[in-house]
């Protein structure tokens, strides 16, 4: 009997195969103990992974909407600045110092890249905000919270940096292709006019790209380690956040 490939089983297990495929795999599963054993083991592990992720999801909802708002606001500021900073950072790159044109151009390229990316980032963040924050916050509460925010802002930012790193990772990776096209178009335009500068430019672009690549890899690494960090750290975070929520909710009512 030929067994379905692991890839097929993955699609099946993660609900990405279509009905006919499902039916075929179901049927195979009925008759094949070997595959059943594999699938059972995979399922058990998937269940473990899913169980583990619960706290991460609960973090926001359980901790309370007040905090979610603050956190989202902090994260909003953070992620835009963070991603933009990351992407613009090829500042200290060593390019041929005499080629002022290239430096200027590179600046323009970077500005353009950031301009291209920012809306994407912002809209991702907005979606994220919309997803997380169901209730509109009143101005009064908001000002109370912003007062309270100052005290814990750093904590919250640190905590949510990780979450937002995830967001930034997916966003950055999604726009990579577009950015590359943009950079390439720039390189071509410029190359048409002056060849030797074009070489400089390409070198500069390569640097940008490699830095961006590194940043991206760093983000991915952070993201991967996020998965491994959530246990003990999460407990600590929740305490911090719970304290903050208590503070943030107590003060508006308590003082009036």
């Amino acid at each position: 009997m030929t067994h379905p490939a692991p890839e097929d089983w993955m699609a099946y297990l993660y609900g990405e195969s279509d009905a006919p495929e499902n039916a075929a795999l179901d049927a195979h599963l009925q008759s094949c103990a070997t595959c059943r054993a594999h699938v059972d083991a995979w399922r058990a592990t998937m269940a473990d992974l899913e169980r583990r992720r619960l706290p991460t999801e609960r973090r926001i909802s359980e901790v309370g909407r007040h905090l979610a708002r603050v956190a989202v606001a902090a994260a909003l500021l953070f992620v835009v600045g963070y991603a933009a900073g990351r992407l613009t950072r090829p500042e200290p790159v060593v390019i041929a110092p005499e080629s002022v044109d290239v430096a200027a151009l590179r600046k323009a390229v970077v500005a353009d890249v950031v301009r291209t990316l920012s809306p994407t980032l912002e809209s991702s963040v907005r979606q994220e905000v919309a997803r997380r924050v169901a209730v509109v916050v009143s101005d009064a509460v908001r000002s109370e919270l912003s007062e309270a925010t100052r005290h814990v802002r750093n904590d919250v930012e640190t905590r949510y940096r990780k979450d937002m790193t995830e967001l930034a990772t997916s966003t950055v990776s999604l726009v990579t292709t577009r950015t590359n096209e943009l950079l390439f178009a720039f390189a071509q335009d410029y190359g048409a006019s002056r060849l030797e500068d074009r070489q400089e430019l390409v070198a500069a672009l390569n640097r940008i790209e490699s830095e961006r690549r590194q940043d991206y890899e760093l983000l991915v690494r952070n993201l991967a380690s996020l998965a491994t960090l959530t246990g003990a750290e999460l407990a600590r975070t929740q305490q911090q956040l719970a304290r903050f929520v208590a503070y943030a909710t107590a003060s508006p009512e308590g003082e009036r």
Partner: protein
Amino acid sequence: MTSSARSPSAVVENEERAEMLRQALLRLPETHRVVVVLRHYENLKFREIADALDLPEGTVKSRMADALTQLARWLRHLREPVDIKQRTLHDSSGP
């Protein structure tokens, strides 16, 4: 079954399992861990993971399968006689 009685021992056990899983995830090669994380924590589809990592979708799926196999193996080693969890729940068929 969903009446999750959060007894202290259940909490501890849960913690332990979480720790095991964490260790296991750490042992995965980064190439595989990334896939697991993107799938389970970011809820990305295989197609999206493939795009994000610039890999063929089949590779992503096969890494996922490898990762799950590996994790299953390690976790089975870690937790000893885990057979069927329901047995502990029902508890009626004592040893």
